[in-house]
C-alpha cells in the first residue's frame, strides 16, 4: 500500500483512496475529426510505458475526487512528486538540481 500525496487535499494518504488513471499529459485533441487516422491512433493507443520516470494520472477517487498528475519511478515504485491537473509537466532535471 503506497502513500500518495494529493495536491488538492495537501495531505499524504493511503493508496486505497486513490485510483490510477493512465499516462498524463495526453490532451484530447480540440477537433478530433480533423485528425488523420494515424494521428488519432497515436492519441488513442500509443503510450510511453517507460522504465523509470513516468508521468501519470491518479484520482483521489475516495477522497476529494480530483484527478491529478504524478511523477513516479516505475522501477522503485516511488513517487517523485504530484501536481494538480492542468499544471505544466514539471522539468525533472530542474527538480533534481533543486534537490541537490
Amino acid at each position, binding site marked *: 500500500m503506497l502513500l500518495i500525496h494529493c495536491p488538492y487535499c495537501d495531505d499524504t494518504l493511503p493508496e486505497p*483512496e486513490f485510483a490510477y488513471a493512465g499516462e498524463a499529459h495526453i490532451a484530447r485533441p480540440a477537433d478530433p475529426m480533423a485528425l488523420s487516422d494515424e494521428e488519432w491512433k497515436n492519441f488513442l493507443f500509443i503510450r510511453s510505458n517507460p522504465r523509470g520516470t513516468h508521468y501519470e494520472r491518479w484520482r483521489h477517487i475516495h*477522497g*476529494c*475526487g480530483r484527478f491529478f498528475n504524478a511523477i513516479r519511478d516505475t522501477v522503485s515504485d516511488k513517487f517523485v512528486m504530484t501536481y494538480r491537473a492542468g499544471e505544466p509537466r514539471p522539468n525533472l532535471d530542474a527538480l533534481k538540481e533543486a534537490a541537490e
Partner: protein
Amino acid sequence: MTAHPRSLAQPPVTVEVLPPAARFSLRLRAEARPVAETALALPLPDRIGRRSVGATRQAICLGPDEWWIDAPAAEADAIRSALDGLVPHALVEITDREITFQIDGPGALDLLAIGIARDLSRLEVGRGARTVFDGVQAVLVREAEHRFTLSVWRSFAPHVGELLEQGAREIALGL
C-alpha cells in the same frame, strides 16, 4: 499493548445509526462561494476537511468545489431552493443516499482502524474527510476526541455496520 478495561456497563466503544436529517451535496466554483454563503446563512470552508457549524446547519468541505450541508429535516425545502437563480451551482439532496453511524467511546480510534488505513490520530476534532472503510467509500467526521460519525451509502451500511459491531465486540474483549 494497551488493554481496555472490560466492563459490560460501559463498553469501550459503541456503534449506533443516527436518524436521518437533511443532507445536500453542494457544488460550485470559488467565486460563487460568497453569494452561496449569504443565501445559505452558513460559511462554506475553503479547505478540504474543514467544517463550519451554524445555528442549525453545518457545512463540511469534501473537495475543492464540494460541500456537504447538514440541516434539520424541516429546513430541507428552504435549502433546496436557496440558491435558485443566484450562481451556477449544483445542489442535490442526498439525505436518503447516506446512512450515518456514530462511533463513540475511548476505543473509537481502534475500532475505525479495522477498516480505515488513514492515520486518524492526525484528524483534528471538528474536521472530516471522505475516505475508505474496508473498501467502502465513507465520510468520516471527528465530532469529539472519542466520537466520530461515519456515513456510507445506504446499501453498504449493513456490511459496514456488522463489521463495526464485530470490531466493537473484539475491542471489548481487550485482546
